[in-house]
Protein backbone atom coordinates (compact mmCIF):
# COMPACT_ATOMS: atom_id res chain seq x y z
CA UNK A 1 0.00 0.00 0.00
CA UNK A 2 2.86 2.41 0.83
CA UNK A 3 4.37 1.86 -2.62
CA UNK A 4 0.99 2.48 -4.27
CA UNK A 5 0.61 5.76 -2.36
CA UNK A 6 4.19 6.63 -3.34
CA UNK A 7 3.22 6.05 -6.98
CA UNK A 8 0.24 8.39 -6.63
CA UNK A 9 2.42 11.09 -5.13
CA UNK A 10 4.99 10.71 -7.93
CA UNK A 11 2.21 11.12 -10.50
CA UNK A 12 0.89 14.26 -8.81
CA UNK A 13 4.12 16.02 -8.01
CA UNK A 14 5.86 15.38 -11.28
CA UNK A 15 3.17 17.37 -13.10
CA UNK A 16 3.37 21.08 -13.71
CA UNK A 17 -0.35 21.58 -13.11
CA UNK A 18 -0.28 21.20 -9.33
CA UNK A 19 2.49 23.77 -9.03
CA UNK A 20 0.68 26.21 -11.29
CA UNK A 21 -2.43 25.84 -9.15
CA UNK A 22 -0.52 26.36 -5.92
CA UNK A 23 1.35 29.37 -7.31
CA UNK A 24 -1.94 30.92 -8.43
CA UNK A 25 -3.32 30.29 -4.94
CA UNK A 26 -0.30 31.88 -3.30
CA UNK A 27 -0.49 34.91 -5.61
CA UNK A 28 -4.20 35.41 -4.87
CA UNK A 29 -3.53 35.26 -1.12
CA UNK A 30 -0.59 37.63 -1.51
CA UNK A 31 -2.56 40.18 -3.50
CA UNK A 32 -5.55 40.12 -1.13
CA UNK A 33 -3.35 40.50 1.92
CA UNK A 34 -1.37 43.38 0.41
CA UNK A 35 -4.62 45.05 -0.69
CA UNK A 36 -6.05 44.82 2.84
CA UNK A 37 -2.77 46.11 4.21
CA UNK A 38 -2.89 49.18 2.00
CA UNK A 39 -6.59 49.85 2.82
CA UNK A 40 -6.14 49.65 6.59
CA UNK A 41 -5.84 52.99 8.43
CA UNK A 42 -5.52 53.46 12.22
CA UNK A 43 -8.75 54.75 13.86
CA UNK A 44 -10.21 55.34 17.33
CA UNK A 45 -11.75 51.88 17.76
CA UNK A 46 -14.14 52.74 20.62
CA UNK A 47 -15.51 55.67 18.68
CA UNK A 48 -16.01 53.43 15.64
CA UNK A 49 -17.74 50.75 17.70
CA UNK A 50 -20.15 53.33 19.12
CA UNK A 51 -20.92 54.64 15.65
CA UNK A 52 -21.48 51.13 14.41
CA UNK A 53 -23.67 50.32 17.39
CA UNK A 54 -25.94 53.31 16.76
CA UNK A 55 -26.08 52.55 13.07
CA UNK A 56 -26.98 48.90 13.62
CA UNK A 57 -29.62 49.67 16.28
CA UNK A 58 -31.30 51.92 13.79
CA UNK A 59 -31.09 49.26 11.07
CA UNK A 60 -32.63 46.67 13.37
CA UNK A 61 -35.52 48.90 14.49
CA UNK A 62 -36.34 49.80 10.90
CA UNK A 63 -35.44 46.50 9.32
CA UNK A 64 -38.80 45.97 7.65
CA UNK A 65 -38.90 49.50 6.23
CA UNK A 66 -35.33 49.74 4.98
CA UNK A 67 -33.95 47.89 2.00
CA UNK A 68 -30.70 46.46 3.14
CA UNK A 69 -28.53 43.61 1.88
CA UNK A 70 -27.69 42.73 5.44
CA UNK A 71 -29.56 39.83 6.99
CA UNK A 72 -31.42 40.22 10.31
CA UNK A 73 -29.15 37.62 11.90
CA UNK A 74 -26.03 39.51 10.80
CA UNK A 75 -27.25 42.74 12.36
CA UNK A 76 -28.12 40.97 15.62
CA UNK A 77 -24.68 39.36 15.67
CA UNK A 78 -22.97 42.69 15.09
CA UNK A 79 -24.94 44.43 17.85
CA UNK A 80 -23.97 41.73 20.34
CA UNK A 81 -20.31 42.02 19.39
CA UNK A 82 -20.40 45.81 19.44
CA UNK A 83 -21.96 45.81 22.91
CA UNK A 84 -19.23 43.47 24.09
CA UNK A 85 -16.50 45.56 22.45
CA UNK A 86 -17.77 48.78 24.06
CA UNK A 87 -18.24 47.21 27.50
CA UNK A 88 -14.79 45.61 27.44
CA UNK A 89 -12.94 48.48 25.75
CA UNK A 90 -11.81 46.27 22.87
CA UNK A 91 -9.34 48.07 20.65
CA UNK A 92 -9.28 45.66 17.73
CA UNK A 93 -11.71 44.48 15.09
CA UNK A 94 -13.94 41.66 16.27
CA UNK A 95 -16.66 42.09 13.60
CA UNK A 96 -15.45 39.41 11.25
CA UNK A 97 -18.29 37.38 9.79
CA UNK A 98 -20.96 40.09 9.64
CA UNK A 99 -19.27 43.29 8.55
CA UNK A 100 -21.20 46.53 8.21
CA UNK A 101 -20.40 47.91 4.80
CA UNK A 102 -21.19 51.47 5.90
CA UNK A 103 -18.71 51.64 8.75
CA UNK A 104 -15.52 49.69 8.30
CA UNK A 105 -13.08 48.76 10.98
CA UNK A 106 -9.34 48.34 10.37
CA UNK A 107 -8.01 44.84 9.83
CA UNK A 108 -4.99 43.08 11.25
CA UNK A 109 -3.16 39.77 10.86
CA UNK A 110 -5.44 38.08 13.40
CA UNK A 111 -8.53 39.26 11.53
CA UNK A 112 -7.27 37.95 8.20
CA UNK A 113 -6.28 34.61 9.71
CA UNK A 114 -9.78 34.13 11.11
CA UNK A 115 -11.36 35.36 7.87
CA UNK A 116 -9.05 33.21 5.78
CA UNK A 117 -11.49 30.33 5.48
CA UNK A 118 -14.21 32.59 4.08
CA UNK A 119 -11.82 34.39 1.74
CA UNK A 120 -10.03 31.37 0.36
CA UNK A 121 -12.59 28.61 0.63
CA UNK A 122 -13.14 28.55 -3.12
CA UNK A 123 -9.41 28.25 -3.71
CA UNK A 124 -9.14 25.28 -1.40
CA UNK A 125 -12.26 23.74 -2.94
CA UNK A 126 -10.81 24.06 -6.41
CA UNK A 127 -7.52 22.46 -5.42
CA UNK A 128 -9.33 19.59 -3.68
CA UNK A 129 -11.61 18.96 -6.66
CA UNK A 130 -8.73 19.17 -9.13
CA UNK A 131 -6.59 16.72 -7.15
CA UNK A 132 -9.39 14.22 -6.66
CA UNK A 133 -10.54 14.43 -10.27
CA UNK A 134 -7.12 13.85 -11.73
CA UNK A 135 -6.30 11.04 -9.36
CA UNK A 136 -9.15 9.00 -10.89
CA UNK A 137 -10.55 10.58 -14.07
CA UNK A 138 -7.19 11.15 -15.70
CA UNK A 139 -6.28 7.47 -15.35
CA UNK A 140 -9.46 6.46 -17.16
CA UNK A 141 -9.10 9.19 -19.78
CA UNK A 142 -5.52 8.36 -20.68
CA UNK A 143 -5.98 4.59 -20.43
CA UNK A 144 -3.33 4.20 -17.75
CA UNK A 145 -6.02 2.65 -15.54
CA UNK A 146 -5.46 -0.57 -17.53
CA UNK A 147 -1.86 -0.60 -16.39
CA UNK A 148 -2.94 -0.27 -12.78
CA UNK A 149 -5.60 -2.93 -12.94
CA UNK A 150 -3.37 -5.65 -14.42
CA UNK A 151 -0.99 -5.47 -11.49
CA UNK A 152 -1.07 -7.88 -8.53
CA UNK A 153 -3.32 -5.80 -6.31
CA UNK A 154 -7.00 -6.09 -5.56
CA UNK A 155 -9.01 -3.22 -6.98
CA UNK A 156 -10.05 -2.19 -3.49
CA UNK A 157 -6.41 -1.71 -2.48
CA UNK A 158 -5.70 0.37 -5.57
CA UNK A 159 -8.70 2.59 -4.88
CA UNK A 160 -7.83 2.88 -1.21
CA UNK A 161 -4.34 4.10 -2.07
CA UNK A 162 -5.90 6.85 -4.20
CA UNK A 163 -8.40 7.84 -1.51
CA UNK A 164 -5.71 7.94 1.18
CA UNK A 165 -3.49 10.06 -1.09
CA UNK A 166 -6.31 12.50 -1.85
CA UNK A 167 -7.26 12.82 1.85
CA UNK A 168 -3.64 13.19 2.91
CA UNK A 169 -2.97 15.92 0.36
CA UNK A 170 -6.23 17.72 1.18
CA UNK A 171 -5.29 17.92 4.85
CA UNK A 172 -1.68 18.94 4.16
CA UNK A 173 -2.67 21.66 1.70
CA UNK A 174 -5.30 23.10 4.05
CA UNK A 175 -2.71 23.25 6.88
CA UNK A 176 -0.15 24.83 4.57
CA UNK A 177 -2.65 27.49 3.53
CA UNK A 178 -3.22 28.40 7.18
CA UNK A 179 0.52 28.52 7.86
CA UNK A 180 1.09 30.64 4.77
CA UNK A 181 -1.66 33.07 5.77
CA UNK A 182 -0.21 33.25 9.30
CA UNK A 183 3.21 34.19 7.93
CA UNK A 184 1.88 36.56 5.26
CA UNK A 185 -0.42 38.35 7.69
CA UNK A 186 2.36 38.65 10.23
CA UNK A 187 4.81 40.08 7.70
CA UNK A 188 2.32 42.66 6.36
CA UNK A 189 0.48 43.63 9.56
CA UNK A 190 2.84 42.52 12.31
CA UNK A 191 2.68 39.40 14.47
CA UNK A 192 1.46 41.12 17.70
CA UNK A 193 -2.23 40.79 16.87
CA UNK A 194 -1.86 37.02 17.03
CA UNK A 195 -1.68 37.30 20.80
CA UNK A 196 -5.21 38.71 20.94
CA UNK A 197 -8.18 36.51 21.65
CA UNK A 198 -10.65 35.36 19.06
CA UNK A 199 -14.12 36.66 19.97
CA UNK A 200 -17.26 35.20 18.37
CA UNK A 201 -21.00 35.36 18.73
CA UNK A 202 -22.74 32.00 18.94
CA UNK A 203 -26.25 32.41 17.53
CA UNK A 204 -27.37 29.02 18.82
CA UNK A 205 -26.56 29.84 22.46
CA UNK A 206 -26.88 33.66 22.11
CA UNK A 207 -23.54 34.08 23.87
CA UNK A 208 -20.23 35.72 23.18
CA UNK A 209 -17.40 33.17 23.15
CA UNK A 210 -13.74 33.91 23.56
CA UNK A 211 -11.02 31.57 22.50
CA UNK A 212 -7.28 31.50 22.05
CA UNK A 213 -6.57 32.42 18.41
CA UNK A 214 -4.60 29.27 17.66
CA UNK A 215 -7.28 27.14 19.25
CA UNK A 216 -9.88 28.98 17.19
CA UNK A 217 -7.87 28.51 13.98
CA UNK A 218 -7.39 24.81 14.58
CA UNK A 219 -11.06 24.37 15.50
CA UNK A 220 -12.17 26.23 12.36
CA UNK A 221 -9.85 24.15 10.20
CA UNK A 222 -11.21 20.94 11.74
CA UNK A 223 -14.76 22.17 11.10
CA UNK A 224 -13.92 22.81 7.44
CA UNK A 225 -12.21 19.47 6.83
CA UNK A 226 -15.46 17.44 6.51
CA UNK A 227 -16.44 19.62 3.56
CA UNK A 228 -13.05 19.26 1.88
CA UNK A 229 -12.91 15.50 2.49
CA UNK A 230 -16.47 14.86 1.35
CA UNK A 231 -15.96 16.97 -1.77
CA UNK A 232 -12.81 14.99 -2.46
CA UNK A 233 -14.71 11.69 -2.27
CA UNK A 234 -17.61 13.03 -4.32
CA UNK A 235 -15.17 14.20 -7.02
CA UNK A 236 -13.61 10.77 -7.14
CA UNK A 237 -17.03 9.14 -7.38
CA UNK A 238 -18.08 11.36 -10.28
CA UNK A 239 -14.66 10.78 -11.79
CA UNK A 240 -15.28 7.04 -12.00
CA UNK A 241 -18.84 7.48 -13.23
CA UNK A 242 -18.23 10.17 -15.87
CA UNK A 243 -14.60 9.46 -16.96
CA UNK A 244 -14.50 13.14 -17.84
CA UNK A 245 -12.34 15.53 -15.80
CA UNK A 246 -14.04 18.73 -16.96
CA UNK A 247 -17.55 17.41 -16.29
CA UNK A 248 -16.44 16.07 -12.96
CA UNK A 249 -14.98 19.42 -11.87
CA UNK A 250 -18.16 21.17 -13.01
CA UNK A 251 -20.44 18.84 -11.05
CA UNK A 252 -18.30 19.02 -7.91
CA UNK A 253 -18.05 22.82 -8.02
CA UNK A 254 -21.77 22.97 -8.68
CA UNK A 255 -22.43 20.93 -5.54
CA UNK A 256 -20.25 23.30 -3.53
CA UNK A 257 -22.11 26.37 -4.78
CA UNK A 258 -25.47 24.76 -4.09
CA UNK A 259 -24.28 24.10 -0.54
CA UNK A 260 -23.77 27.87 -0.04
CA UNK A 261 -27.38 28.69 -1.04
CA UNK A 262 -29.12 29.03 2.29
CA UNK A 263 -32.51 29.68 0.67
CA UNK A 264 -32.56 26.02 -0.45
CA UNK A 265 -32.53 24.80 3.13
CA UNK A 266 -35.89 23.61 4.40
CA UNK A 267 -37.17 20.95 6.77
CA UNK A 268 -36.19 18.18 4.41
CA UNK A 269 -33.05 19.46 2.72
CA UNK A 270 -31.46 20.44 6.04
CA UNK A 271 -30.52 16.78 6.44
CA UNK A 272 -28.58 16.64 3.18
CA UNK A 273 -24.87 16.29 3.67
CA UNK A 274 -24.06 19.29 1.46
CA UNK A 275 -25.88 21.54 3.94
CA UNK A 276 -24.08 20.00 6.88
CA UNK A 277 -20.52 19.51 5.70
CA UNK A 278 -19.36 23.05 6.59
CA UNK A 279 -19.47 22.95 10.37
CA UNK A 280 -18.52 26.64 10.63
CA UNK A 281 -21.84 27.91 9.29
CA UNK A 282 -24.77 28.84 11.48
CA UNK A 283 -27.35 27.00 9.41
CA UNK A 284 -26.37 23.50 10.49
CA UNK A 285 -28.98 21.62 12.54
CA UNK A 286 -26.75 21.05 15.50
CA UNK A 287 -23.11 20.15 15.42
CA UNK A 288 -23.45 16.59 16.71
CA UNK A 289 -26.13 15.75 14.15
CA UNK A 290 -24.17 17.44 11.37
CA UNK A 291 -21.06 15.46 12.23
CA UNK A 292 -23.12 12.25 12.20
CA UNK A 293 -24.55 13.13 8.78
CA UNK A 294 -21.03 13.82 7.51
CA UNK A 295 -19.68 10.53 8.84
CA UNK A 296 -22.58 8.51 7.41
CA UNK A 297 -22.28 10.31 4.05
CA UNK A 298 -18.55 9.66 3.98
CA UNK A 299 -19.11 5.95 4.56
CA UNK A 300 -21.89 5.72 1.97
CA UNK A 301 -19.86 7.50 -0.72
CA UNK A 302 -16.79 5.43 0.19
CA UNK A 303 -18.73 2.17 -0.17
CA UNK A 304 -20.28 3.34 -3.45
CA UNK A 305 -16.83 4.21 -4.75
CA UNK A 306 -15.52 0.74 -3.96
CA UNK A 307 -18.52 -1.04 -5.49
CA UNK A 308 -18.41 0.95 -8.73
CA UNK A 309 -14.62 0.77 -9.06
CA UNK A 310 -14.63 -2.98 -8.53
CA UNK A 311 -17.44 -3.66 -10.98
CA UNK A 312 -16.54 -1.23 -13.73
CA UNK A 313 -15.48 -2.86 -16.98
CA UNK A 314 -12.68 -1.15 -18.84
CA UNK A 315 -14.19 -0.29 -22.18
CA UNK A 316 -12.33 -0.30 -25.49
CA UNK A 317 -10.53 2.87 -26.56
Amino acid sequence: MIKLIKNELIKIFKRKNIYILLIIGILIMLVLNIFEGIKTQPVDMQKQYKRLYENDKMLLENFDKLETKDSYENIVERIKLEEYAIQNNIKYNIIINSENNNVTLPKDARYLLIKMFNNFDILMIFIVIYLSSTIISEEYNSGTIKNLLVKPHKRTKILLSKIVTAIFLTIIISILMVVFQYLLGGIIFGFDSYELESIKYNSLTNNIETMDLMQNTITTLLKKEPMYLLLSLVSMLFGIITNNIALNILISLGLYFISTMEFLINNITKYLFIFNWDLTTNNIINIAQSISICVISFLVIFILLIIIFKKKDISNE
Partner: protein
Amino acid sequence: MKVLECNNLKKQVKNKIIVQDISFSVNKGDVVGLLGPNGAGKTTIIKLILGLIKISEGRVLINGYNIEKDFVKAIDKVGAIVESPDLYMYLSGYDNLKITANNYKNISKDRILEVARIVGLDNRIKDKVSTYSLGMRQRLGIAEAIINSPELLILDEPTNGLDIEGTIEMRNLIKSLSNQGIAILISSHNLTEIDNLCNRIIAIKSGKMVTDETIDEFKQISNESSYIFELNNVENVDKILQNYKFEIIDKNKIRIYISKEKVSELTKKFLTNNYQVYLVQEEQFTSEEAFIKKVGENKID
Protein backbone atom coordinates in the same frame (compact mmCIF):
# COMPACT_ATOMS: atom_id res chain seq x y z
CA MET B 1 2.64 -27.09 -18.93
CA LYS B 2 -0.41 -24.84 -19.35
CA VAL B 3 0.33 -21.29 -18.36
CA LEU B 4 -2.96 -19.91 -19.64
CA GLU B 5 -6.20 -21.79 -19.93
CA CYS B 6 -9.45 -20.31 -21.21
CA ASN B 7 -12.56 -22.46 -20.85
CA ASN B 8 -15.79 -21.57 -22.65
CA LEU B 9 -15.32 -17.87 -22.24
CA LYS B 10 -18.32 -15.73 -22.96
CA LYS B 11 -18.92 -12.01 -22.71
CA GLN B 12 -22.41 -10.67 -23.05
CA VAL B 13 -23.48 -7.06 -22.62
CA LYS B 14 -27.23 -6.76 -22.22
CA ASN B 15 -28.56 -8.73 -25.19
CA LYS B 16 -25.42 -8.61 -27.27
CA ILE B 17 -22.97 -11.51 -27.22
CA ILE B 18 -19.49 -10.12 -27.80
CA VAL B 19 -17.56 -13.40 -27.62
CA GLN B 20 -18.58 -16.96 -26.82
CA ASP B 21 -17.24 -20.53 -26.67
CA ILE B 22 -13.67 -19.31 -26.45
CA SER B 23 -11.51 -22.17 -25.24
CA PHE B 24 -7.80 -22.43 -25.72
CA SER B 25 -4.59 -22.77 -23.80
CA VAL B 26 -1.09 -21.38 -24.03
CA ASN B 27 1.83 -23.50 -22.85
CA LYS B 28 5.27 -22.57 -21.67
CA GLY B 29 7.35 -21.53 -24.66
CA ASP B 30 4.34 -21.14 -26.96
CA VAL B 31 3.94 -18.06 -29.08
CA VAL B 32 0.26 -18.00 -29.94
CA GLY B 33 -1.20 -15.58 -32.45
CA LEU B 34 -4.72 -14.27 -31.92
CA LEU B 35 -5.93 -13.34 -35.38
CA GLY B 36 -9.09 -11.73 -36.53
CA PRO B 37 -10.57 -8.74 -38.31
CA ASN B 38 -11.62 -5.56 -36.54
CA GLY B 39 -14.48 -6.17 -34.18
CA ALA B 40 -13.89 -9.92 -34.06
CA GLY B 41 -13.40 -9.85 -30.30
CA LYS B 42 -9.64 -10.18 -29.88
CA THR B 43 -9.26 -7.29 -27.44
CA THR B 44 -12.34 -8.44 -25.55
CA ILE B 45 -10.74 -11.87 -25.10
CA ILE B 46 -7.53 -10.27 -23.87
CA LYS B 47 -9.45 -8.09 -21.42
CA LEU B 48 -11.37 -11.12 -20.14
CA ILE B 49 -8.08 -12.94 -19.58
CA LEU B 50 -6.62 -10.01 -17.68
CA GLY B 51 -9.67 -9.33 -15.54
CA LEU B 52 -10.26 -5.91 -17.05
CA ILE B 53 -13.84 -6.88 -17.87
CA LYS B 54 -16.16 -9.28 -16.11
CA ILE B 55 -16.56 -12.77 -17.51
CA SER B 56 -20.20 -13.59 -18.32
CA GLU B 57 -19.53 -17.33 -18.50
CA GLY B 58 -16.48 -19.57 -18.39
CA ARG B 59 -13.22 -19.19 -16.62
CA VAL B 60 -9.62 -18.16 -17.07
CA LEU B 61 -6.79 -19.93 -15.29
CA ILE B 62 -3.29 -18.51 -15.21
CA ASN B 63 -0.74 -20.89 -13.75
CA GLY B 64 -3.68 -22.73 -12.26
CA TYR B 65 -5.14 -19.66 -10.53
CA ASN B 66 -8.63 -18.46 -11.42
CA ILE B 67 -8.49 -14.85 -12.58
CA GLU B 68 -11.76 -14.02 -10.82
CA LYS B 69 -11.25 -15.87 -7.57
CA ASP B 70 -7.48 -15.54 -7.12
CA PHE B 71 -6.75 -12.41 -9.09
CA VAL B 72 -3.57 -11.36 -7.30
CA LYS B 73 -1.89 -14.76 -7.62
CA ALA B 74 -3.09 -15.21 -11.21
CA ILE B 75 -1.86 -11.83 -12.47
CA ASP B 76 1.41 -11.79 -10.54
CA LYS B 77 3.49 -13.32 -13.32
CA VAL B 78 1.69 -11.70 -16.23
CA GLY B 79 2.93 -8.83 -18.34
CA ALA B 80 0.62 -7.16 -20.81
CA ILE B 81 0.06 -4.39 -23.31
CA VAL B 82 -3.63 -3.90 -24.06
CA GLU B 83 -4.65 -1.90 -27.14
CA SER B 84 -1.62 0.38 -26.87
CA PRO B 85 1.07 1.06 -24.28
CA ASP B 86 -0.54 3.20 -21.58
CA LEU B 87 2.13 5.52 -20.38
CA TYR B 88 2.29 8.66 -18.27
CA MET B 89 3.34 11.08 -20.97
CA TYR B 90 4.48 13.77 -18.55
CA LEU B 91 6.85 11.39 -16.79
CA SER B 92 10.19 10.10 -18.01
CA GLY B 93 10.60 6.55 -19.28
CA TYR B 94 12.47 5.79 -16.07
CA ASP B 95 9.65 7.11 -13.88
CA ASN B 96 7.10 5.08 -15.82
CA LEU B 97 9.20 1.96 -15.21
CA LYS B 98 9.70 2.93 -11.57
CA ILE B 99 5.95 3.23 -11.06
CA THR B 100 5.49 -0.20 -12.67
CA ALA B 101 8.27 -1.68 -10.54
CA ASN B 102 6.64 -0.35 -7.36
CA ASN B 103 3.70 -2.67 -8.02
CA TYR B 104 5.89 -5.71 -7.50
CA LYS B 105 8.20 -6.92 -4.79
CA ASN B 106 11.92 -6.78 -5.18
CA ILE B 107 12.36 -5.05 -8.49
CA SER B 108 15.63 -3.17 -8.20
CA LYS B 109 16.93 -0.12 -10.00
CA ASP B 110 19.30 -2.47 -11.84
CA ARG B 111 16.36 -4.41 -13.25
CA ILE B 112 14.74 -1.17 -14.44
CA LEU B 113 17.92 -0.21 -16.26
CA GLU B 114 18.26 -3.76 -17.59
CA VAL B 115 14.81 -3.78 -19.25
CA ALA B 116 15.50 -0.31 -20.64
CA ARG B 117 18.65 -1.72 -22.23
CA ILE B 118 16.85 -4.83 -23.51
CA VAL B 119 14.35 -2.71 -25.46
CA GLY B 120 17.01 -0.27 -26.62
CA LEU B 121 15.90 2.76 -24.63
CA ASP B 122 18.86 3.09 -22.27
CA ASN B 123 20.02 6.37 -23.86
CA ARG B 124 16.60 8.00 -23.69
CA ILE B 125 15.21 6.48 -20.50
CA LYS B 126 15.47 9.72 -18.51
CA ASP B 127 13.61 11.73 -21.15
CA LYS B 128 9.89 12.47 -20.94
CA VAL B 129 7.67 10.02 -22.77
CA SER B 130 6.00 12.92 -24.57
CA THR B 131 9.28 13.33 -26.50
CA TYR B 132 9.34 9.67 -27.59
CA SER B 133 8.37 8.49 -31.06
CA LEU B 134 5.55 5.96 -31.40
CA GLY B 135 8.05 3.16 -31.75
CA MET B 136 9.89 4.20 -28.59
CA ARG B 137 6.62 4.26 -26.65
CA GLN B 138 5.89 0.77 -27.93
CA ARG B 139 9.26 -0.37 -26.69
CA LEU B 140 8.73 1.24 -23.31
CA GLY B 141 5.42 -0.60 -23.12
CA ILE B 142 7.26 -3.87 -23.70
CA ALA B 143 9.81 -2.93 -21.05
CA GLU B 144 6.98 -2.38 -18.57
CA ALA B 145 5.44 -5.70 -19.53
CA ILE B 146 8.63 -7.70 -18.95
CA ILE B 147 9.93 -5.91 -15.88
CA ASN B 148 8.49 -8.50 -13.51
CA SER B 149 10.01 -11.40 -15.52
CA PRO B 150 6.57 -12.69 -16.46
CA GLU B 151 5.67 -16.27 -17.29
CA LEU B 152 2.85 -15.08 -19.55
CA LEU B 153 3.17 -12.13 -21.87
CA ILE B 154 0.12 -10.73 -23.63
CA LEU B 155 0.87 -8.29 -26.43
CA ASP B 156 -1.65 -6.36 -28.46
CA GLU B 157 -0.10 -5.32 -31.79
CA PRO B 158 3.50 -5.29 -30.50
CA THR B 159 5.07 -4.09 -33.74
CA ASN B 160 2.56 -1.32 -34.29
CA GLY B 161 4.34 1.89 -35.22
CA LEU B 162 7.79 0.35 -35.44
CA ASP B 163 10.07 0.88 -38.40
CA ILE B 164 11.67 -2.07 -40.19
CA GLU B 165 14.64 -2.17 -37.87
CA GLY B 166 12.42 -1.84 -34.83
CA THR B 167 10.13 -4.58 -36.12
CA ILE B 168 13.06 -6.94 -36.58
CA GLU B 169 14.40 -6.09 -33.12
CA MET B 170 10.96 -6.63 -31.61
CA ARG B 171 10.59 -9.93 -33.40
CA ASN B 172 14.00 -11.05 -32.11
CA LEU B 173 13.09 -9.91 -28.61
CA ILE B 174 9.83 -11.85 -28.65
CA LYS B 175 11.63 -14.92 -29.98
CA SER B 176 14.30 -14.68 -27.27
CA LEU B 177 11.60 -14.34 -24.61
CA SER B 178 9.82 -17.42 -25.89
CA ASN B 179 13.14 -19.28 -25.94
CA GLN B 180 13.38 -18.50 -22.23
CA GLY B 181 10.13 -20.41 -21.79
CA ILE B 182 7.80 -17.43 -21.53
CA ALA B 183 4.34 -18.14 -22.91
CA ILE B 184 3.34 -15.38 -25.29
CA LEU B 185 -0.07 -14.44 -26.67
CA ILE B 186 0.07 -11.93 -29.51
CA SER B 187 -2.96 -10.25 -30.94
CA SER B 188 -2.29 -8.93 -34.41
CA HIS B 189 -3.68 -7.99 -37.77
CA ASN B 190 -0.25 -8.44 -39.36
CA LEU B 191 -0.26 -11.93 -40.77
CA THR B 192 3.39 -11.74 -41.77
CA GLU B 193 4.29 -11.06 -38.16
CA ILE B 194 2.16 -13.94 -36.95
CA ASP B 195 3.77 -16.15 -39.58
CA ASN B 196 7.26 -15.20 -38.44
CA LEU B 197 6.66 -15.27 -34.71
CA CYS B 198 4.00 -17.74 -33.78
CA ASN B 199 3.90 -21.46 -33.56
CA ARG B 200 0.11 -21.47 -33.18
CA ILE B 201 -2.76 -19.45 -34.52
CA ILE B 202 -6.17 -18.88 -32.99
CA ALA B 203 -8.44 -17.26 -35.54
CA ILE B 204 -11.46 -15.32 -34.31
CA LYS B 205 -14.43 -14.22 -36.32
CA SER B 206 -17.56 -12.50 -35.01
CA GLY B 207 -16.72 -13.41 -31.43
CA LYS B 208 -16.18 -17.11 -32.07
CA MET B 209 -13.12 -19.25 -32.52
CA VAL B 210 -12.77 -20.46 -36.07
CA THR B 211 -9.60 -22.40 -35.59
CA ASP B 212 -6.84 -23.24 -33.11
CA GLU B 213 -3.98 -24.82 -35.01
CA THR B 214 -0.25 -24.83 -35.45
CA ILE B 215 1.05 -22.55 -38.19
CA ASP B 216 1.64 -25.46 -40.53
CA GLU B 217 -1.82 -26.89 -39.90
CA PHE B 218 -3.30 -23.44 -40.43
CA LYS B 219 -1.62 -23.04 -43.80
CA GLN B 220 -2.79 -26.41 -44.97
CA ILE B 221 -6.12 -25.62 -46.61
CA SER B 222 -7.12 -29.21 -47.15
CA ASN B 223 -5.99 -32.49 -45.71
CA GLU B 224 -4.44 -33.47 -48.97
CA SER B 225 -1.13 -32.13 -50.13
CA SER B 226 -1.06 -30.41 -53.48
CA TYR B 227 1.63 -29.84 -56.05
CA ILE B 228 1.94 -27.29 -58.79
CA PHE B 229 3.17 -28.69 -62.08
CA GLU B 230 4.42 -26.23 -64.65
CA LEU B 231 4.29 -27.79 -68.15
CA ASN B 232 4.82 -26.58 -71.68
CA ASN B 233 1.04 -26.74 -72.10
CA VAL B 234 -1.97 -28.24 -70.35
CA GLU B 235 -3.85 -29.51 -73.38
CA ASN B 236 -5.43 -32.91 -72.86
CA VAL B 237 -3.89 -33.39 -69.42
CA ASP B 238 -7.25 -34.74 -68.25
CA LYS B 239 -6.43 -37.96 -70.13
CA ILE B 240 -3.32 -38.47 -68.05
CA LEU B 241 -4.92 -37.27 -64.83
CA GLN B 242 -8.07 -39.37 -64.97
CA ASN B 243 -7.47 -40.86 -61.54
CA TYR B 244 -6.33 -37.67 -59.93
CA LYS B 245 -8.03 -34.63 -58.52
CA PHE B 246 -6.67 -31.56 -60.25
CA GLU B 247 -7.38 -27.89 -61.12
CA ILE B 248 -6.02 -26.03 -64.14
CA ILE B 249 -4.54 -22.77 -62.95
CA ASP B 250 -3.48 -21.29 -66.30
CA LYS B 251 -2.22 -22.39 -69.73
CA ASN B 252 0.95 -23.81 -68.19
CA LYS B 253 0.13 -24.73 -64.63
CA ILE B 254 -1.99 -27.36 -62.92
CA ARG B 255 -2.67 -28.02 -59.26
CA ILE B 256 -2.73 -31.72 -58.62
CA TYR B 257 -3.75 -33.26 -55.29
CA ILE B 258 -1.32 -36.12 -54.75
CA SER B 259 0.94 -37.46 -52.05
CA LYS B 260 4.69 -36.92 -52.14
CA GLU B 261 5.25 -40.55 -53.12
CA LYS B 262 3.20 -40.15 -56.31
CA VAL B 263 5.08 -37.10 -57.62
CA SER B 264 7.87 -38.98 -59.32
CA GLU B 265 5.46 -41.46 -60.95
CA LEU B 266 3.28 -38.64 -62.31
CA THR B 267 6.25 -36.67 -63.58
CA LYS B 268 7.39 -39.76 -65.53
CA LYS B 269 3.87 -40.09 -66.94
CA PHE B 270 3.92 -36.51 -68.24
CA LEU B 271 7.36 -37.00 -69.79
CA THR B 272 6.31 -40.28 -71.41
CA ASN B 273 3.34 -38.45 -72.94
CA ASN B 274 5.62 -35.82 -74.49
CA TYR B 275 4.91 -33.08 -72.03
CA GLN B 276 7.83 -30.98 -70.87
CA VAL B 277 7.91 -30.60 -67.15
CA TYR B 278 9.51 -27.28 -66.11
CA LEU B 279 8.65 -27.20 -62.43
CA VAL B 280 7.15 -29.38 -59.70
CA GLN B 281 6.50 -27.56 -56.40
CA GLU B 282 4.65 -28.47 -53.24
CA GLU B 283 2.00 -25.85 -52.66
CA GLN B 284 2.30 -23.75 -49.45
CA PHE B 285 -0.35 -21.16 -48.59
CA THR B 286 0.62 -17.99 -46.92
CA SER B 287 -1.12 -17.25 -43.68
CA GLU B 288 -3.13 -14.58 -45.45
CA GLU B 289 -4.46 -16.98 -48.04
CA ALA B 290 -5.16 -19.55 -45.36
CA PHE B 291 -6.87 -16.92 -43.20
CA ILE B 292 -9.11 -15.75 -45.99
CA LYS B 293 -10.04 -19.31 -46.88
CA LYS B 294 -10.66 -20.37 -43.29
CA VAL B 295 -12.00 -17.23 -41.65
CA GLY B 296 -13.71 -15.60 -44.58
CA GLU B 297 -13.37 -12.72 -46.95
CA ASN B 298 -13.48 -9.99 -44.29
CA LYS B 299 -11.13 -7.12 -44.93
CA ILE B 300 -8.07 -7.44 -42.78
CA ASP B 301 -6.47 -4.12 -41.62
